[in-house]
């Protein structure tokens, strides 16, 4: 005899947990299948939690979720080899509850989220890999796991199996990921005592800082770096497009090591001890790389649907929101006694289109192409801008007018006025 559920959710990351929790809370029977030993054991993120997306699912999450530090300061750095030009935004408004962004440790956070799913009535099974979907005609009717007797049936399957989404690929829902549409990110967690973190980053108590970086650290590849403060650790990482890594043949860990040795970063890490090294793929193809999101008996959410806003370093909130919207679509259909047909599940796409998820992704749809065309944003411009800053700050008896001329000449000579106008136009169009 085979098990049968209203819904099966594949994957226990932010998208899967959001979907499973919302479905279970509404009283649908939910089976969630995770291949990791525990929920979160295979999940990797920076990791910043965006409160808003979670609040709409679990309003009182702050009561018991394992949170590290809430962010009161955002730093943005443009790096040259030995210098950086940066801006900070620090606001007391971020220092008053309810806090807006938190650093988290995913292994702990995901376990907490999964417990919420189970408390809401969801059945969670770990260490089990879904090998393929079971079809009844063109309708997805269930999943087949890697265990003996692994056929399990459901009226609806929500795929939240992460960036590779082997399932969706096998089922032909989307093609193989292209290297230009995924970033490879590597990250280290470094232990550092809170008594050292706090004065070093100018925070106290549970306050925290996020630093986002762009420039020479990625060696001309399209990518960014980051450094976040956790309670008693730091996370530092860097990610670039997989196609760039492949073309330039620079191993990601070398890039991270060199970034850690940057004269502006090294002092921040002093005395910290590496606890963990992880790597992960991030779908950064943007709006145009999003596959079909639903069909007869299935929906797809989170990273597996390519829902990542690379510009704003947002992904988990898009994942949670898409998981929630998929669940709400199913709940409404279930309540109305409607089948989970492709026509009915089109409501999921509509809800996504109406939310910030698709609106933001649409806004930046031109960015990947613009960046692929102008690698100067990651090499030449950081160099020129730090040069300008250097001239501006340095006092050496040269008159200011000559300094300005020098800077102008450098910009014109290195990139050319036409080139700069082209870059500016493309960037403006991409961000418009």
């Amino acid at each position, binding site marked *: 005899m085979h*098990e049968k559920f209203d819904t099966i959710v594949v994957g226990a990351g932010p998208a899967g947990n959001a979907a499973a929790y919302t479905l279970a809370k509404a009283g649908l029977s939910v089976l969630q299948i995770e291949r990791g*030993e*525990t929920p979160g*054991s295979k999940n990797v993120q920076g990791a910043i939690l965006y409160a808003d997306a979670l609040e709409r699912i679990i309003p009182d999450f702050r009561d018991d979720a394992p949170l590290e530090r809430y962010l009161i300061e955002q730093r943005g750095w443009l790096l040259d080899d030995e210098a950086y030009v940066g801006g900070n935004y620090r606001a007391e408004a971020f220092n008053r509850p309810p806090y807006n962004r938190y650093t988290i*440790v995913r*292994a*702990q956070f995901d376990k907490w989220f999964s417990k919420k799913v189970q408390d809401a009535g969801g*059945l*969670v*099974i770990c*260490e*089990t890999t879904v090998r393929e979907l079971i079809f009844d005609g063109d309708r997805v009717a269930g999943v087949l*796991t890697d*265990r*003996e*007797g*692994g*056929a*399990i049936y459901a009226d609806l399957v929500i795929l939240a199996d992460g960036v590779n989404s082997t399932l969706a690929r096998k089922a032909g829902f989307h093609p193989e990921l292209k290297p230009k549409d995924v970033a490879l990110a590597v990250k280290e967690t470094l*232990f550092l*005592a809170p008594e050292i973190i706090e004065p070093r980053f100018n925070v106290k108590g549970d306050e925290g800082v996020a630093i986002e970086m762009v420039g020479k650290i990625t060696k001309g590849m399209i990518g960014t770096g980051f450094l976040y403060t956790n309670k008693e650790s730091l996370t530092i990482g860097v990610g670039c497009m997989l196609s760039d890594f492949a073309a330039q043949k620079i191993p990601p860990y070398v890039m991270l090591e060199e970034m850690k040795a940057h004269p502006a970063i090294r002092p921040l890490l002093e005395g910290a*001890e590496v*606890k963990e090294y992880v790597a992960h793929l991030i779908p950064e193809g943007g709006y145009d790389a999003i596959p079909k999101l639903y069909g007869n008996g299935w929906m797809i959410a989170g990273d597996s649907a390519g829902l990542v806003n690379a510009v704003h370093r947002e992904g988990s909130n898009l994942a949670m929101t898409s998981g929630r919207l998929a669940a709400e679509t199913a709940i409404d259909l279930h309540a109305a006694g409607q089948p989970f047909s492709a026509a009915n599940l089109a409501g999921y796409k509509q809800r996504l289109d109406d939310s910030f998820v698709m609106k933001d992704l649409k806004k930046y749809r031109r960015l990947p192409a613009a960046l692929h065309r102008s690698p100067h944003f990651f090499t030449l411009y950081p160099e020129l801008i730090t040069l300008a800053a250097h001239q501006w700050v340095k006092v050496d008896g040269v008159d200011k007018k000559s300094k300005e001329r020098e800077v102008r000449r450098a910009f014109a000579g290195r990139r050319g006025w036409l080139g700069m106008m082209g870059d500016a136009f493309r960037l403006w169009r991409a961000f418009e």
Partner: protein
Amino acid sequence: MHIVVCIKQVPDSSQIRVHPVTNTIMRQGVPAVVNPYDLFALEEALRLKDTYGAQVTVLCMGPPPAEAALRKAISFGADDAILVTDRAFAGSDTLATSFALASAIGQIGRNMAVDLVFCGKQTIDGDTAQVGPGIAKRLDLQLLTYVSQVDRVDTERREIVVQRRAEGGVQVLQTRLPCLITMLEGTNEMRFASQAGMFRAARHPVRVWDKAAAGIEDVAKIGLKGSPTVVSKVFAPQPKASKAEQIKCESNAPKDLAVTLIAKLFTQHPALESAISAGTTGSI
């Protein structure tokens, strides 16, 4: 046949880190696993169940999250699971733990007499290998330690034959039931749970016993009170290695390198030189 398998949930020692400042073990965020040695005990019990038919009850003492270890055992095929948990058990050493487990096994036996108790050889967090023998002594069970295989069980004649790994060979031992076996590592391979097993584990109502349910009346025998073992000091061993010295030689010939190295060794350890030259006739 009724088999009780004692398991423990332990921190995954491969992922434990030592706090660089305080030298204490950082348990936060370290995943908990079933004590790996216990899995060999469980698998051997499940094999007996496959061969002879048996009721397999898994027993665990620990904090509430240890329920996960019991569910895992259910997924592999155990029939019933009991978690003995009570604040009063906090701080138990091996004496108090074996007392509490023996008492719980006594309670289990009231419903259905226990023929066999399985334990892992030891735990990876305590490494004492005392709890199994402690239980056997308290319950007056035959004790078989370091067992590598159970050859035969005869429930009619109340006999069991096992192989026990001993220094210099394997002993084949026969004894009476009921008995307690501590199972050696690497002796079998845990099965892969079926999908049905996973469902059963996810839904199984793990029975939770406090000290009263485990049949314990005398609180002086459990927890800190019942634990004469005292950890007087915890320290991290100091790395002894001194800095490596690089030896530079004029030529790259291996012989020259070796001669230089040996000369250096002898300068630092004159006793070694005299010992070697006393025992040899030739010269270098």
